[in-house]
Every structure is written in structure tokens, then in C-alpha cells.
């Protein structure tokens, strides 16, 4: 029971990490931006979904698209305020990183103020109990709940859809052109600003979906749910090769596997040290990530 259950735990945690990291990787792959505010958007996605259910009486399934749109728009706003002016000035990528840290602090602080008003001092909130079945699926030799299966499936499906969008559609073609070289892309008549806005919207929507599903799965939301996963997400996308979408998926499972394995082996004290040491090592030894190719092939 123990080993099987730990494998299930790893798959489950991996799908959460992967789902979180898809949008993170997308923005990096197309725009070369490391958006550390992604975790704040993710939290806002969960929060928007929650409010739609608690205060507007939406059915739970509807909270997913609502959160996607809300978080997507928030991400676009972020792009306009925190990134576009820097890009227009030709500022280095590091400035965008700093700006995104500021944006992240801002978004979490605002959420804190609102949470306190709405949910009281503990700032804990949840979807109504029973919104989704939390009992383990019966008849299996291990414990797995329906929401866990849903998240795994959603993570896989979204990854495939995203991959198809980028590789098979005209829009995706333009995104790849922008990823390759913004100057060349604009010379080819591509609306580069539009691609930026769209990519941020898409990444925000992915974060929103991840946020709501995360909220449903763990069902105890605070303004800080993004913080712990933010640094893990960083490890995930570095491991997958910064800006590689399949990489993000694989990276999520590797990090989760490593965490669960280190706990199962009795080293829960060193779990995070192991993960961050891996981050360190990967950057030094194989900065293109586990599945990445050499530089110059973003997206």
C-alpha cells in the first residue's frame, strides 16, 4: 500500500505542479519573460472563481471559465503596466524580473486586504463543502479522489491543446515568430504587441484554471497559496528547460517525484534542500533543462 500510494501521491502532486507551470513556461517561451507574478495571478484565479461561487451563486463548473477570463484579464493588465513600458524602452530582461516581483507583492497585498474583509482575520476561505466529491474512489488498491483524476487529465489536455495551438495554428505560428525574433516578426507584419497581450492572456487563463482546480482540490484558500508553489514552479520550468511546454509537464512530475521520494525515504527535513540543489545543479550542468535542446529554440 505504501509504495503504490506514494507513487499516486507523486503523480497527483506532479499534475498540480505541471498545471501551475504551463502558463509560466508559455510566457517565457514566447516572450522571454520570467514572470514571477504568475503565482499571484494563480492565486487571484482561485479567488475569482471562489467569489463567483460564494457571492454570485455560480455553479462550481462555471467558476473555471470565469476564473480563466478574470485571471487572463488581470495578466493582460499586468503586461500593460509592468512589462510593456519596459519592453518599449528596450530594458533588459532583469528589469522585467524585478518589475514582476513588485507586481507579485502588490497583488498578494491587495488580496490580503480583500480576504480580510470577506473572510475574516484568518483569511481562510473555501468552496462550499461538497462542491466536489472528496471521498476516495472506491474499489482501488490506493486512495485517489475524483478531483485528483480531473486535475491530472486537465493538465495533460491543456498541455496537448497548448502544444497544438503553438505548432498547428496560424496564431501559434505568429507566436513562434515573435519568440524567434520580435524585430523580424514585426517586419513580417505580425502585430507583436497583440501577440504579447494574447500570450499573457493565455498564460493568465491557464493560471486561473490551475488556481480554481487547485482551490477545489485543496479547498482551503489563503492569499498565500501562490507563494510556496512559486519557487517550486521555478524549479519545474528550469528543469523542463526554461520556456519548454512539454518540459514544464515533465519537470512538474520530476520535482514532485523527487519530493515524494525524499519524504518516503525518510528525509522530509531535506526535501526542499534536495529540490533547490537540483535547481542549482541543472542550471550549472544543463541549463537547457532535462528535455530541452540547445539555446535558440524557444517555443
Amino acid at each position, binding site marked *: *500500500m*505504501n509504495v503504490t*500510494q*506514494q507513487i499516486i*501521491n*507523486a503523480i*497527483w*502532486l506532479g499534475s*498540480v505542479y505541471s498545471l501551475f507551470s504551463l502558463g509560466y513556461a508559455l510566457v517565457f517561451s514566447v516572450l522571454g519573460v520570467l514572470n514571477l507574478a504568475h503565482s499571484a495571478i494563480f492565486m487571484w484565479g482561485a479567488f475569482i472563481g471562489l467569489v463567483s461561487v460564494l457571492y454570485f451563486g455560480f455553479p462550481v463548473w462555471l467558476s473555471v471559465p470565469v476564473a480563466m477570463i478574470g485571471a487572463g484579464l488581470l495578466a493582460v493588465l499586468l503586461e500593460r503596466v509592468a512589462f510593456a513600458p519596459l519592453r518599449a524602452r528596450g530594458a533588459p530582461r532583469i528589469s522585467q524580473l524585478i518589475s514582476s516581483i513588485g507586481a507579485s507583492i502588490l497583488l498578494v497585498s491587495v488580496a*490580503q486586504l480583500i480576504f*480580510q474583509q470577506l473572510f*475574516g*482575520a*484568518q*483569511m*481562510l476561505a*473555501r468552496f462550499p*463543502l461538497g462542491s466536489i466529491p*472528496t*471521498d*476516495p474512489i472506491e474499489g482501488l488498491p490506493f*486512495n485517489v*479522489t475524483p478531483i485528483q483524476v480531473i486535475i491530472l487529465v486537465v493538465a495533460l489536455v491543456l498541455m496537448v491543446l497548448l502544444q497544438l495551438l503553438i505548432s498547428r495554428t496560424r496564431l501559434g505560428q505568429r507566436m513562434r515568430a515573435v519568440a524567434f525574433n520580435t524585430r523580424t516578426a514585426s517586419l513580417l507584419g505580425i502585430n507583436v504587441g497583440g501577440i504579447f497581450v494574447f500570450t499573457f492572456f493565455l498564460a493568465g487563463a491557464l493560471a486561473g484554471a490551475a488556481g480554481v482546480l*487547485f482551490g477545489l482540490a*485543496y*479547498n*482551503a484558500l*489563503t492569499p*498565500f*497559496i501562490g*507563494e*510556496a*508553489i512559486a519557487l517550486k514552479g521555478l524549479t519545474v520550468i528550469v528543469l523542463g528547460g526554461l520556456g519548454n511546454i512539454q518540459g514544464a509537464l515533465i519537470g512538474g512530475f520530476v520535482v514532485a517525484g523527487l*519530493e*515524494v521520494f525524499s*519524504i*518516503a525515504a*525518510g528525509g*522530509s*527535513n531535506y*526535501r*526542499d534542500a534536495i529540490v533547490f540543489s537540483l535547481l542549482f545543479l541543472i542550471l550549472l550542468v544543463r541549463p537547457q533543462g532535462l528535455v530541452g535542446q540547445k539555446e535558440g529554440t524557444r517555443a
Partner: protein
Amino acid sequence: MKSAARLFLILLILVPALAMAQEATPEAVASVPMGTSACPAPATLSGEVTIGAVLTLSGGASVYGGPQQAAIQLAVDQVNEAGYLGGATLNVIFEDSASENEQAINAMTKLVEEDQVVAVLGPTLSREAFSADPVAQDNGTVVMGVSNTAIGITDMGEFVFRDSLPEAAVIPGVIGQATELLGLTRVGLLYANDDDFTVSGYEVMRDAFSELGIEIVGEETYATGDVDFNAQLTNLLSGDPDVLAVSALAAEAVQITLQARALGYDGYIIGGNGFNSPAVLEQTGADSEGLIVGGAWNIGNPTPTGESVYFVAAYEAATDSSPDQFAAQAYTGAWLLAEAIRCADSADRTAVRDSLAGIVDYATPLGVFSFDENRNPIHAPVAQIVREGRFVVLTAETGVLGE
């Protein structure tokens, strides 16, 4: 040493048990307003007496500072309404520590040196107290922790008090009681290893269990802010424990409870102060069945004191939300200061200190309250178990799960 500890344990088990035995019918407890003083109203005191409070109003621990602020304000208003200080009025200045040690020092310095307050409540976090309390001590000003549970707080000096029971005074009693009543034999421990509060809680739990000769089937850690505990819980559950002892803050307490249940665990979960929040019960729903919680105060206490009933009603009227343990302790702290000032009949810092140290058997929401010789609180902790979504007194009968 060992026998002394055992005696202490037995006392801790007996005291609440006796107290509960006396008050068999909770519904009969009437609301009693605060302020049954041992001293006459002050004759010479007049004007405005100012106290300060250093609380985590922003930053990571702002979860605790908010209720504390509301409760202290409530107490101060009540003191003034009742004319508790005779011709004088009580005034409070709140300062934010932003959950940072540096800011706590700055706030304490401002209150003590610039605002010249008579006494200070707080700071919220124990580590802030270790940073900032020496400032008050050096200036001969009373500082009373209302949520500091770490070991060694009051060792900082004779001006340092606290009204918050340390984990060491709560958890061993609860564990001893639970073990005796429920016949526990195997325990799994889970705690956040990067937080001073959860680590001290864990150490107390571990020592209490080993003292009682209960087998520890596993110890697992996580990091503050984690949300997924499946791997740790799976490890612990494979040792087939009959109780999980968890030292966690409220947000993680909720997750741990939910996930342990989803993994098919339906036994007891013992938690410390972190579980002692209305939010935990509210958030975990049916999964809270069998949660055993020890703390200094709990809103769900089926046998509250009259002062507690009064406090809850007043707090709910004033803030539109339910108080938690932090609020109750902060409220009590403000009243303790008022009582000390009243009895000293003076706003002199040293006189207030001496008067505060002399408080004995003061009726508060926390119960009948006294300070021991080390300025630590003495009052009965609560040990309860959740049954069908409600807190009930932990007894041999209520403790039987699964009927």
C-alpha cells in the same frame, strides 16, 4: 526532575477535569461582565492613562494581529465605559510590527521612549518578543505577551509578563488526558520544521508522548506554506498509528486534517494552539470528527466561564465576527493591565508592574487567572474533542469514535 514533571502532568489532567466536573450543564452559564476587581476604584488616578500594543497588523502574521487589535480596543472601551479607572480614562496606541523583528523593535522603542506608555501588550510573535521586549525591560516598562508561547519569554526580565499559556502548559495535559481516556498506544508526529511555534509545539508533544511510553511510529516534517501533505501522511499512516499529533498553524491544520481523511485515516488527530481556531472546524466540516484540541481558550468550549460568554457576545457585536484564542488572550491582557493600574492607583510604571505581578484569581474569559512567580499565566487549559461538528468535553464516553 522526572517525578516533578509527572506531578505537573497529573495536576494538569486533574485541574480541567475537576473544573469541568463542577460545571456539568453548560447552558446554565450566564454572561458575567468583566471587571470584578479585588481593589476599590482608584482615588488619585486621573487624566489619560496610555498603554501601547505592538501587533502584526501587516505582513505574514497579520492573521493574528487583526483580532488582537479588535479585542484590545473592545476591552479598553469597556474599561472606560465602566469607569474602571475612576476618574481616569484608558487610552491605547497600536503599532504595527509588520511581522518583522526589526519593526517590532522600532515600534516598541517608539511606544516606550517617545509615547511614554505605562505598559505594552504584545508583540504578537515570540521571535518579535525576543527582539523587542528587552527595550521595554531596559526602560522599566511592563510588556505583556498575549500570544507568546515560546520557552524563555519571561526570563528576559521582571518587567516581562505573558497571559498566554505556553505549549508546554497545554499540550502535555491534553495528551496525558487523551492517552488515559482513550488508551492510545501508537502516535505519528507531523510538524513544520521551519517555524519556531510549530517546532516548540512538536518538541513538547514528542516529550509528552515518550514520557507516557507511547510508541512514536514516525516523525515527518513539512515547510510552512505547504499545501500537500499526502506523502508525509502516507508515511505516517503506514505505521498504523491510533493518533496523529500535529503541530501546525491554522491554514496547514485544515489541509492536514482534510488530506489525512482522504487517505482513509479515521482516527484521532491531536493538535495544539494552531488547531484552536473556529476556522479549522468550519473549514474541515465532517472531517473534523475526532479532532482533539488543546488550548488556552476556545469559542466552542462547552463549559465556558461567564466572562467568556460575555466576551464572545461583546466581540461579535463589535466586530461582526467570532473571536479566536488570540482575541480572547489579547482581551484578557488589556483587562489585566486595567486591573493592575486600578490596584496600583497610579500610572507609575514600576507601581503597575508590582501590582500586575500581584494579581491573583482574577476572573477572565480564560478562566480564573493568576501569575506565577515567573510572571507566566496560571489558568486551566481546555481539552476538547470534536464530535458531530461541535466541541465537547473530552471524556471516556465522548472519546469513542465510530458509532
